[in-house]
């Protein structure tokens, strides 16, 4: 039997068809293997995978609250250490759970230096409660709490740079990854698990329901985020960026125009000024991380 076939994450879960978070859960467990304990915050992944009395998980899995996800993981990690056990602990949370609600405990756990991995599947809003903006929602995305309309072009604030914040806690390994490149995602999860101390992996996970695209396009959208420079896939070791995925960059509108959350930038009429601001975000990313591959003419 192959890795994929002795799955630790079973079908029958209630994720929307084409959900990147479901795919991320599978990939994370493929990389982590059976000797893993999962601690889960509230959110789509928790809700769709564990409608009582069922669960899709085949490893020990515990859900408590949003606020104390990292505290529960810290406690389990400490107990395992005391008992001399070797299981790995992964705390999982959505972007709302991670960037906003669970931030206090996450910061505490990283500062105390527990040996666990925190993985955020980032679908860039509070999806399970109906698409409210979070600290991870990108600039100009329309959500139910940042609706685009006559007086607004959507979310007014840029995405919080959480990987940098956690690296500043002294985390030995911080990485961003995407479901667009599963082998890379699995490698990073493995590396985080094999690195001692608190490590963080942020997985870009497009949500067809919340972003407004067909489920069959999930991987295509995830690739476009990388190819436009709006999402940068990189690794940071001891606070220093050590690896970056380089691309031949595409204009940001190729990514934006595929999604309902950015539709107001194109209809009823094209908003060049706002599209230019988003292009500037991608340009800054490209410069900061050096992602551009310049093809010789």
């Amino acid at each position, binding site marked *: 039997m*192959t890795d*994929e*076939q002795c*799955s630790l*994450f*079973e*079908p*029958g*879960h*209630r*994720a929307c*068809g*084409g*959900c*990147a978070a*479901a*795919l991320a859960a*599978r990939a994370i467990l493929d990389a982590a293997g059976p000797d893993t304990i999962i601690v889960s915050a509230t959110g789509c992944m928790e809700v769709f*995978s*564990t*409608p*009582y*009395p*069922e*669960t*899709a*998980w*085949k*490893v020990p899995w515990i859900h408590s609250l949003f606020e104390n996800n990292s505290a529960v993981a810290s406690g389990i990690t400490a107990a395992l250490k005391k008992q001399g056990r070797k299981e790995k602990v992964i705390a999982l949370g959505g972007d709302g759970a991670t960037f906003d609600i669970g931030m206090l405990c996450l910061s505490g756990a990283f500062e105390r230096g527990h040996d666990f991995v925190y993985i955020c599947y980032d679908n860039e809003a509070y999806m399970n409660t109906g698409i409210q903006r979070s600290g991870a929602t990108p600039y100009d995305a329309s959500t139910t709490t940042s609706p685009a309309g006559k007086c607004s072009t959507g979310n007014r604030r840029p995405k919080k740079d959480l990987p940098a914040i956690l690296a500043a806690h002294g985390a030995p390994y911080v990485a961003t990854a995407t479901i667009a490149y*599963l082998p890379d995602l699995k490698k990073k999860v493995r590396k985080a698990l094999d690195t001692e101390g608190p490590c963080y992996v942020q997985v870009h996970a497009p949500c067809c329901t919340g972003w407004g695209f*067909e*489920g*069959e*396009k*999930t*991987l*295509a959208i995830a690739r476009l985020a990388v190819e436009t420079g709006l999402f940068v896939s990189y690794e940071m070791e001891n606070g220093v960026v050590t690896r970056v995925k380089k691309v031949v960059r595409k204009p940001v509108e190729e990514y934006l125009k595929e999604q309902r959350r950015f539709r107001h930038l194109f209809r009823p009429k094209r908003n060049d000024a706002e599209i230019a601001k988003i292009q500037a975000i991608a340009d800054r990313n490209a410069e900061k991380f050096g992602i551009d591959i310049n093809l010789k003419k």
Partner: protein
Amino acid sequence: MIMPLGLGCSSRPGTSRVNRTGSWRTFRPVFLRDKCTKCRLCIQLCPEGCIMEESEGFPVPDYTYCKGCGLCAEECPAEVIEMQKEEK
């Protein structure tokens, strides 16, 4: 001191299988074998994890759980997966 934990509930591993999500499907992925290169990409990217490899190495979807999302058909490099409307 060990205190009994009187809160919470538990479930048996993998019990989500009782939920046959195949009933959600509007379109059915049909795998045409002739041009399939057995690259296994579809097996890895199905969010349900419901594509299996049969004895000859060809992928086969489990229609009990396949939601018909179309991701496998969209991504197949050999374009051998066809989405066909379900007849119910």
